[in-house]
């Protein structure tokens, strides 16, 4: 029995030792929860492409808003933690799961270039479009507005006013939709007069649309016609790199274009999508930093290089919607989910006529036009006349209205009766609803700011992958590895 006693002793002592040496994070802290949640969400990418995830985490560490953009898994986990204000409401709608974009923070709204050349404000990131409890996206938006206001340097009182305007506009739109009142259509030039932020977007959008600025920025004319640049495109953005793709991957794009075209609402002529060149694009996005992103140069309406078109082909993942009502998923696949998303998300399904979905070398991908005209709201531009309570308040009303509208549309099996349901739930307590949501947003904005610091501390203490240990016992899938490419070094974020 002596060996048994020895073994038992070893097990017990080992267990006790493990309690004392489970890593630098206190297992009962918010930092531990943050790291565990992020690693769990990024697990597959961490296993296959750790260098790309490293870049994502570095990007998230730079600013509080970048952290907010990249930490949607944490936001969702918080929304299921009843101890937190963000998981509490007096106005829940059990069993009601409207369609939504799934990550409605303000920097996911921007201009889309319609087929007639006009620009309109719409949600421009449909990666997570699916069906969710309504308050997830409402709060994602309101917290983002609160963070934006603080980034703009607004006082706490003004921040409260801005968030209040956001939620009030959301509820007003819901009530109008529930009562069948007319709602303004696309948000375009007509709305820019009293809205410095929208005006800024449209002004720059029109300028770059007319100049076809993306062709200037991303391509050059060579002996074979227009081709993409390679390497660092803009010295001011050294992480934004265009790199060669393997020939087989480029060859696969021809079939992808056919697949993509077949699913478009207004398909262009097949020859318009003839692939002229394609490059792997590194260094864009935050949450999607680690995803495979490819720029494809296609022929456009004529052989003239002046109307060549740049499309972005981006790897798609799961929406992240979990635990919903049966049947549990609301589309046959990622491609189908993305294909239907514009019907719900946009004022008109063809707000970007080139938005579509397909598969490429076996990967579900989103395809959309890459155009410098399609400007996105950025907190970094909240300066001068755009950094006032009035400007941010006016802009937040627009995006809140868009959110209310899209959640009220039938899509992905949602019936489109959400507005009536919420209106009935809130009836007579409208002010209480707004005040509740404002409090939640301000309180959770504090949480996000604290989490950002925790995240940075964790990166410093545990390394660029937050302590995740790579398991490199088996060789990578070489084809996948070729698609992941070699990302450029990420600029240091920790300059303190």
């Amino acid at each position: 029995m002596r060996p048994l006693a020895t073994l038992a002793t070893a097990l017990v002592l080992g267990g006790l030792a493990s309690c004392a040496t489970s890593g630098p994070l206190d297992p009962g802290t918010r930092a531990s929860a943050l790291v565990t949640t992020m690693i769990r969400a990024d697990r597959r990418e961490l296993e296959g492409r750790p260098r790309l995830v490293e870049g994502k985490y570095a990007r998230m560490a730079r600013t509080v808003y970048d952290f907010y953009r990249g930490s949607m898994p944490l936001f969702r986990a918080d929304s299921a933690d009843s101890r937190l204000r963000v998981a509490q409401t007096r106005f829940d709608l059990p069993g009601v799961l409207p369609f939504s974009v799934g990550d409605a923070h303000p920097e996911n709204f921007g201009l889309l270039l319609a087929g007639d050349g006009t620009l309109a404000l719409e949600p421009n990131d449909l990666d997570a479009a699916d069906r969710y409890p309504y308050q997830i996206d409402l709060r994602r938006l309101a917290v983002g507005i609160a963070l934006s206001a603080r980034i703009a340097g607004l006082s706490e009182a003004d921040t409260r006013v801005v968030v209040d305007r956001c939620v009030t506009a959301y509820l007003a739109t819901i009530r109008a939709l529930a009562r069948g009142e007319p709602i303004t259509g696309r948000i375009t030039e007509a709305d820019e007069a009293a809205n410095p932020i929208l005006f800024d977007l449209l002004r720059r959008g029109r300028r770059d649309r007319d100049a076809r600025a993306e062709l200037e920025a991303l391509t050059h004319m060579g002996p074979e016609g227009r081709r993409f640049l390679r390497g660092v495109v803009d010295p001011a953005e050294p992480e934004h790199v265009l790199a060669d793709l393997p020939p087989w991957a480029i060859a696969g794009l021809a079939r992808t274009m056919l697949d993509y075209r077949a699913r478009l609402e207004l398909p262009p002529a097949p020859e318009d999508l003839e692939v002229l060149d394609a490059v792997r694009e590194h260094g864009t996005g935050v949450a999607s930093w680690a995803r495979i992103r490819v720029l494809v140069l296609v022929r456009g309406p004529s052989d003239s290089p002046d109307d060549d078109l740049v499309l972005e082909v981006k790897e798609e993942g799961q929406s992240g919607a979990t635990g919903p009502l049966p049947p549990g998923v609301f589309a046959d696949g990622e491609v189908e989910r993305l294909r239907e998303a514009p019907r719900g998300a946009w004022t008109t399904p063809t707000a970007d006529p080139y938005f579509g979905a397909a598969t490429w070398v076996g990967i579900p991908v989103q395809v959309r036009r890459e155009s410098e005209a399609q400007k996105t709201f950025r907190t970094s531009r909240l300066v001068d006349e755009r950094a006032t309570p009035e400007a941010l308040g006016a802009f937040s009303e627009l995006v809140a209205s868009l959110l209310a509208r899209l959640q009220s549309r039938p899509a992905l099996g949602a019936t489109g009766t959400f507005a009536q349901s919420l209106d009935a739930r809130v009836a007579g307590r409208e002010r209480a609803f707004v005040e509740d949501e404002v409090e939640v947003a301000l309180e959770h904005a504090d949480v996000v700011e604290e989490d950002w610091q925790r995240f940075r501390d964790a990166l410093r203490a545990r390394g660029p992958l937050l302590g995740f240990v790579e398991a490199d016992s088996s060789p990578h899938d070489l084809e996948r590895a070729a698609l992941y490419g070699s990302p450029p070094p990420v600029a240091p974020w920790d300059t303190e």
Partner: protein
Amino acid sequence: MKLSSALVLASFWLAFPDGVLAEDGRPTDPEAPFDSPESSLGQRDASVEAREVPDAEASRSSEAVATAGADTTGPLRPGETRVSLERAPGEGSQPGLGTLPTHAVTSGVPWSVAVGTQVFAEYQLLFPSGADWNHRFALPRAWGYLAFRLENVTGRVLLEATRGTDDGALSGVADDSLLLRIREAWGGYRVIDLVELRVGLIPTLLAPWLTQHWGLRAVGRVGLRDLELVAPADLGASATVDLPAGFGRVGVSYTNGEGYSSRELNRGKNLEIAADLRPFAFEPALGPLGVLVGYTNGSLGAGSARSDRVVGSLYWDQRELGVGMSAAYVMGLADRGEREGAVVDAWARGLILDHLILGAQLIHFMRDLSSGADTLTRVTFSAGGLILDQLRVYVAADGRFADAAARVASPWWEGWDVRLVVEADVVVRVLGAL
């Protein structure tokens, strides 16, 4: 020949007149498809078992499809081999009440090999609160396994079907196919027939033991498993000791802590200690009364989120009647080490006229002890019966309730389900003498 073979097999069932305890009083293993043969059968002599089998009982047993050897009711002779197809006795020896498909490896013989399968198939009628009804076929369990014993060396490989991706996923490996993965793969050694050591992808202790006492795994999981607060298997090592005179078993395991579906993500290891005791084993009238206590010190994920559990259970566990309650103090849940909750799981089952099986289960989960709010509750009622030895059918109804706080955090929880559950399990056993 056929009858005599069946006698041998029937004897295995009858080795557990009080359900989960072997004749020597040691409890059988729980959720595992079959488990430590010794813990259920001890070192009983096959010839002794055979002598105890009345013909009437033998005829109730599974059919033996093939045997080899002159006298299948006697002890194995050198070089003799016997093959049988049977309904897994499992926690068995309780037709209709088993959570284990089988004890695939037979003790008391020099060697044995068992190959088996267990399937739970369901038709589910779902009535989620506030939303449209739905219905679907589901496969909560599809297991295939192979186990062996050679003298004191044992081992088992258990495959299970699982979705290629998590629930709610639209695509994954081979889209959303059902795939096979390894749930258990371990080797073990039996020391003086009291201690069993296992290494590899092993079953844990608390979840399987609790499942065994509940007894109606096909109808539902125990609370801690249903809420995914403990893993049923993990990479590591374990040692279990069968207490003498039927007083129960104690065990310790030391595992990665991430469960069998993930590799290790932190430096911490899970230490699990459990004791499943029958304090009145010496008194036949009170023998089924048992108490189970357990403690897990663990961590989850790269952030080493605390995942500690303290579990206590009081139960009455015999073939005709099973009643029990367990309570668990949960330190760390949903990857948040600072969250503390509690789970209460109460159950009752009864076997009527040897064919009708009634069951009821209540799971109450308090997810935030600091506020007392955020509670989820599930109630299940079931009725079922034996169709064939290898086939059982149940009808189950579940009601799921949440308080106001939980309704917001888990808006999809509430509703009613009605399920038709079919449980099938078969094992082919080969045993012989060297």
